[in-house]
């Protein structure tokens, strides 16, 4: 067994409330409880960004929590998947346009799965997490693919032009 297999069988989730109303947060907590039992997918709620694979974010991003959100995202190791839970996290919801709100989390970090609803139901969260698992697997594969530079250098005006050699992998670097 290698690391990728473990990651597929037991993705760890990290939960951050970026300024929401607690509604979606208690539904995430309900997902961990025996009735919905998200642990059957091998998931466990962890507090450490450096050990987690899936980031669950709720709430519109407030001015004071935006730096923390970006910091937590940056601390998570690749491959990682971000799920935005609820209407506020996806678009800003009812809080859109309030003076201390920045709107949805996708303005700060890339989001892979959007879960709708105010508040989200546990079934929807589980559905979103299962979709995130597929994305996580895809990202893992993409990460493990070896990078090869297939282009050859061009002969221009008696000199070798190597400027475009890395064009194929440039999107991966940004």
């Amino acid at each position, binding site marked *: 067994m290698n690391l990728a297999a473990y990651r597929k069988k037991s993705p760890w989730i990290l939960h951050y409330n970026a300024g929401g109303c607690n509604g979606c947060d208690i539904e995430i907590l309900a997902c961990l409880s025996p009735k919905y039992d998200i642990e059957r997918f091998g998931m466990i709620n962890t507090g450490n960004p450096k050990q987690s694979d899936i980031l669950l974010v709720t709430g519109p991003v407030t*001015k*004071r929590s935006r730096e923390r959100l970006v910091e937590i995202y940056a601390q998570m190791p690749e491959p990682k998947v971000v799920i935005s839970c609820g209407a506020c996290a996806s678009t800003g919801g009812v809080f859109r346009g309030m*003076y*201390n709100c920045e709107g949805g989390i996708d303005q700060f970090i890339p989001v892979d799965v959007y879960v709708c609803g105010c508040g989200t139901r546990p079934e929807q969260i589980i559905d979103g997490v299962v979709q995130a698992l597929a994305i996580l697997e895809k990202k893992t594969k993409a990460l493990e693919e070896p990078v090869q530079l297939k282009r050859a250098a061009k002969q221009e005006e008696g000199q070798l032009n190597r400027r475009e050699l890395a064009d194929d992998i440039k999107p991966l670097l940004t």
Partner: protein
Amino acid sequence: MKKIETTLEHLRKDIAAFYNPGLHHFMVMNAVETGEQMEVQWFFADYAHPCETTCFYALTGREDEVPSIKDIVLSAWVAEAELVDLMNIKVENTAKGFVLEPDFESGPLLKKK
């Protein structure tokens, strides 16, 4: 609701005479714009039944410094710090930045002219 008028000079004396921790509890501070002036309000509620809500209010100018009641009512610092940021009122010995980020324009709850 029982409203008692007071002034900034007499505020500390009035509240010290009124406030008895065994009978009342302090709830919150509030400010309302009334034209050019601000009406600053201090809310207290009784423990007993039937319960009466008492409101002390004082009219102040926008630049006046409101005296602090932190030493009379020990939990008032939270309400004072909030009002400083949200309504842009100067309160004695209270710094900005408890509610809003330091780079933010203070007084977001004030009506825009």
